[in-house]
């Protein structure tokens, strides 16, 4: 399942089950739950893909 879809599922589950979506200090809890549902390697890949996207957006040569 694509990771974006997984995150949507976590947000939908939060709405249905009355789980909180944000903490009192404004942190998006659905993102944390989604990250916790991944394996450590998958979490590292999320980070690396994010960095690669930023590099592309900045026009960095890789």
């Amino acid at each position, binding site marked *: 399942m694509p990771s974006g879809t997984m995150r949507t599922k976590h947000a939908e589950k939060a709405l249905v089950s009355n789980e909180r979506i944000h903490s009192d200090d*404004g942190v998006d809890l659905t993102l*944390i739950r989604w*990250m916790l549902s991944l394996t450590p390697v998958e979490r590292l890949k999320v980070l690396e893909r994010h*960095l690669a996207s930023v590099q592309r957006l900045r026009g960095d040569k890789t």
Partner: protein
Amino acid sequence: MTKPKPDFLAILRTLVRQRVEFIIVGGVAAVLQGAPLSTFALDVVHRREQSNIDRLLKAVETLEARFRTPGGANRKPNRSHLSSAGHQLLMTRRGPLDLLGVIGGDRGYDELVRETNEVRLGSNLKVRVLSLPALIRDKEEVGRDKDKAVLAVLRRTLEEGQKPQT
């Protein structure tokens, strides 16, 4: 200037292959434990014992590490750098790597190793990662704005991770 695409897993494999004793700290440690944060460098605290520094020197040679500080593009880290308590900010062919002698309130490898979790990355790669409570404490102690900015995310990640899975 060409910048390497970050491949933190490849850097970690090189360190483990050379049997370097190290602890992952900072943003990558937080991400590995489920925090939705971003970071541009892999931060590690290495054991500053001579045979470990020998192994680390081999690893940074393999990674073609150079200082990424101004004027450092052609300078390689040496034994003296890696023996110090300072922070060596490097660029490798696999992305940025920061080798830290101590962090937070002057804690080095020997103090921090008691507060680590062993994390498996694939079938044959295990690494030591500084625990979320220790990461939070270090960021509270340092207290810079950039550290305070991520504290809420780290605290909520710790709370969510401690809840029973449904």
